[in-house]
């Protein structure tokens, strides 16, 4: 099927690419079907695109590239909901807030997007209050750790 994306024009996806977000994303509870689309292969970034609404497309980042020691537990409830059986099935992304300059851009480490790639479903979870995983973690941090 064809979908219209926010930045990548019209693209062809297959039914198997669709990730179901039963509860949508926070503040976007009605968007329940997304696809992950690659961006530049050299960067730890991708697009999380709603299949029904071209405007709803997020830049997401592989958070471990920005914060090496990023780690959290997935609650029993979320594990059940996402039918997670083994760790290898889990992909973690953090939503990026892109600003005019990369210096001002941030990623959301407080509410990561968890995807079970085997079961094709996902959820945005909220971590317990934790000062080291803020809502706006500077993207700039990559420059220090990656170079």
């Amino acid at each position: 099927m064809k979908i219209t994306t926010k930045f990548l024009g019209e693209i062809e996806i297959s039914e198997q690419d669709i990730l179901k977000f039963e509860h949508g994303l926070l503040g976007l509870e009605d968007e329940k079907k997304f696809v992950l689309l690659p961006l530049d292969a050299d960067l730890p970034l991708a697009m999380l695109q709603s299949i029904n609404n071209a405007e709803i497309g997020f830049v997401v980042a592989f958070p471990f590239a920005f914060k090496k020691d990023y780690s959290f537990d997935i609650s029993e409830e979320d594990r059940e909901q996402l039918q997670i059986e083994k760790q290898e099935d889990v992909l973690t992304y953090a939503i990026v807030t892109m600003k005019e300059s990369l210096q001002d851009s941030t990623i959301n480490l407080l509410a990561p997007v968890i995807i079970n790639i085997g079961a094709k479903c996902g959820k945005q979870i909220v971590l317990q209050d934790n000062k080291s995983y803020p809502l706006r973690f500077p993207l700039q941090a990559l420059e220090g750790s990656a170079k």
Partner: protein
Amino acid sequence: MLVLSRKKDESIMIGDQIEIKILAIEGEQIKIGIVAPKTVKVHRSEVFEAIQAQNKEALSISSGFLEQLKKK
């Protein structure tokens, strides 16, 4: 909305596993203790509101960002 009045050290039960207790009242601030099973997530509502707002802000990216990334 159900409204209940409670004094310090009094509590309410929600279901049979969640207890909300008033620990201290200091002027405008009230300290609340929550006993709940691990599967119940407890968050300040501002946290949710802030995440919702951040998600919306994250959607307002201009298409120029791709070029900007490549320049890096």
